[in-house]
């Protein structure tokens, strides 16, 4: 089976956060108790209950103001260090390139997992310590796998780590990859049947698309060229220099989004 890649085109994102809810719905994850803190970004960061969170940033000033959105989630490294780091071999990577945490009998058991005492208030697990993107956002120094909610509580005393799993289980649910419903316009029944990730199926603007690795990478580079030719001189493909199965087209420099490369 050919490897798959997700392309998140931030120039098409309208910040509606349908992807956040679709993700929680498919994964049967509970809502977090939040408060409004002066930003539309909510919950504030990725957590065990929110595997993707849109990050909101205001850039520029009067007359040149841009409200930019970044759908944050696990990047699905082609060679995932978290998988190597897991002492229980509880992180899987399938032939499509999807990196997921096993939740079965031999799966992740963070309460038995050694933790590094690097942060007294929230010790990191080995998979978090080895995540190449743990310093990639301004919001948190944690890696992509999370075991707690934003308020520091767990889903249960024996709750597992959790992160984006590329909806790998939609394949095993006898769903078919099928045509991209946004491209065909044939919505009737496609949503319910598609094995594509829940966030892609829910996205109303087509900002999230999946396909073959080469096709998506070519599409991203073409979109970067298009944006650069149309006034977005800093447009770029993220992440750079580290192969992943989730890539972004950014309109602005990575620092604008509070991001860093690996």
């Amino acid at each position, binding site marked *: 089976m050919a490897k798959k890649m997700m392309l998140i085109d931030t120039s098409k994102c309208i910040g*509606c*956060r349908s992807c*956040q*809810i679709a993700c*929680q*719905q498919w994964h049967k994850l*509970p*809502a*977090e*108790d*939040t*408060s*409004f*803190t*002066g*930003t*539309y970004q*909510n*919950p504030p960061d990725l957590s065990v209950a929110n595997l993707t969170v849109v990050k909101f940033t*205001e850039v*520029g*000033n*009067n007359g040149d*103001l841009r*409200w930019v959105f970044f759908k944050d989630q696990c990047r699905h490294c082609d060679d995932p260090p978290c998988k190597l780091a897991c002492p229980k071999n509880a992180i899987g990577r399938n032939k499509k390139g999807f990196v997921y945490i096993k939740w079965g009998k031999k799966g992740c058991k963070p309460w038995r997992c050694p933790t590094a005492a690097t942060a007294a208030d929230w010790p990191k697990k080995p998979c978090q310590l080895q995540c190449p993107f743990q310093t990639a956002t301004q919001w948190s120094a944690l890696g992509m796998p999370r075991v707690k909610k934003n308020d520091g509580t767990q889903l249960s005393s024996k709750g597992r780590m959790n992160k984006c799993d590329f909806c790998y289980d939609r394949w095993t649910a006898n769903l078919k990859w099928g045509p991209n419903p946004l491209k065909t316009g*044939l919505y*009737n029944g496609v949503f319910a049947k598609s094995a594509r990730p829940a966030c892609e199926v829910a996205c109303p603007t087509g900002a999230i698309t999946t396909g073959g690795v080469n096709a998506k990478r070519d599409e991203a580079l073409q979109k970067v060229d298009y944006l650069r030719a149309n006034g977005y001189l800093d447009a770029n493909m993220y992440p750079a220099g580290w192969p992943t199965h989730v890539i972004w087209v950014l309109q602005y420099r990575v620092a604008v989004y509070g991001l860093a490369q690996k």
Partner: protein
Amino acid sequence: MTAWTAASNQGPLNIDVPNKDQYIDGLMCWGQNPAVGGASADFERRTLANLKWLVCVDLWETETAAFWKPDGVGGSLGIPGRDPATIATEVYLLPAAASYEKEGSVVNSGRWSQWRYKALDPPGDAVDDLEIINRLAKKLISLYQADTPGYLPDPVANLHWGPYPGIDAHGANGASPLGYETAGHADPHKVGWEINGYFCPTSTTGTPGYRVDGFWGPNAALTTLQEDGKTSSGNWLYCSHYVNPGDPINSFDASATTPNGNRQENRVPVEKVRGDGNYIGLYSNWSICWPLNRRIIYNGASVYQTGHPMVGQPLAPHKWVLDFGVGGTGGTGPATNGSDVSDGFTAPGGGAPRYPFIMQTEGHGHLFGPGREDGPFPEHYEPWETVVTANPLGTGTLTSPTNFGHARPEAYEHPGHGNPDFPIVGTTYRLTEHWQAGQMTRNNPWLCQLMPEAFVELSEELAGLLGISNGDTVEVKTQRTELYGKRMQAVACVTRRFTPYTINSSTVHHIGAIWHFGYTGLATGHSANLLTPHIGDANTGIPESKAFICNIRKYPGGSFLV
């Protein structure tokens, strides 16, 4: 002046806010929540206590339904400080079915009427609103027929409830009894028959009981609504939406038939193409569009005087709408070619000239309305409440002289134009994450997680003047809050998306507040409609609650802007 007009009018602005000076004893709210969504929400909540009875038909206990409940500090939820024991209003809450729990039609803003199917039964005792109104109407009719002491009883006692005993879903004439019920329950199909219309027993143009198809068309004399009093239609615009089993899929397309006559169930997911292959994405056989399945209104304007579109430049090939051909019959029938039903235009030689804009005397489009006293462009009026004291675009009247106020002036009185106590322009709006008065979304944990609280957006400049930081609690006051004592308190969202205006060379700040929130549901907060004036436009009474004057401070302890 406005108050007198309003006092005798129980129209849109007043019907949801009865008070003891008026005639309204009771109120039925069908999926409406004026305690959150109405202008001057605090006033509306108070006037609810003047009702003798209130019926709320809803999925949840709305703020309106719960206005009388104790707030825990001696008052009631809707009226702080008023002992619930002193509220005599009898409140009924009828559990209703959600959209997925009932069958029926729904019309979008593109005028398509689409049939919607029932996916599952509503929970518990909940029933769909059609069933509720059917039972209610039948009870009222029988009460009026048995005893007619009511005011003007005849229209109710003699109400024709249900379509003529017409053909049933299988085409058998006379098989369907009078009334809207099938097997004891209100049947949306029968309502569809009634709205579409049918031939009465006296009809000489059609078979009694059969349903009419359109109000004009290729077989105008035979199948359409007549002006002889012998046909009936609930709404002529929807005439052709629910015809007879086996009739064509739409009035002008005999290429397929509709099995049960319900064209709202048409589901052909491909473009209907006539002629040489134009493709403009009308999907004419997906649902039915009023009137007469005309997807683009005034589409006769899409051709030249020859009756042809100009294919190629300047129009894109295969993107044309209609082609009447030589001597085409547009105006009295379908265009010769094209994917839409023509609206106006008779080609030269094809009869009396008929131009596309059929609602205008001259038949042509207008850039402005001739004959208006205002001149070519309408006069600019400031909102009812404004920070300026003279009309900045002229010497005329500052605000509209025909504004339509509530019967009780206290609900809309402004504090004086340019009042220095209220130097800030306020507006209210919605969020992607919440829907209208909020019960549909503020009872969904995931959506409450995304937008958990009411907030007020303001500029960095204004926040700097008042010492407000992002995430602080703020308090907003207007004329209404000072009258009723309940200011809006919410979280501050300091954002560069707001910048001060420069009006008449001076700096004017503005704020925006979210109005979805109330005191029931999973996520609660103050509605921005605590701030808004109860004023509307003269024509339809559409509330002018999007512009008012206000002031804001950090809460507690901050100072208002001076």
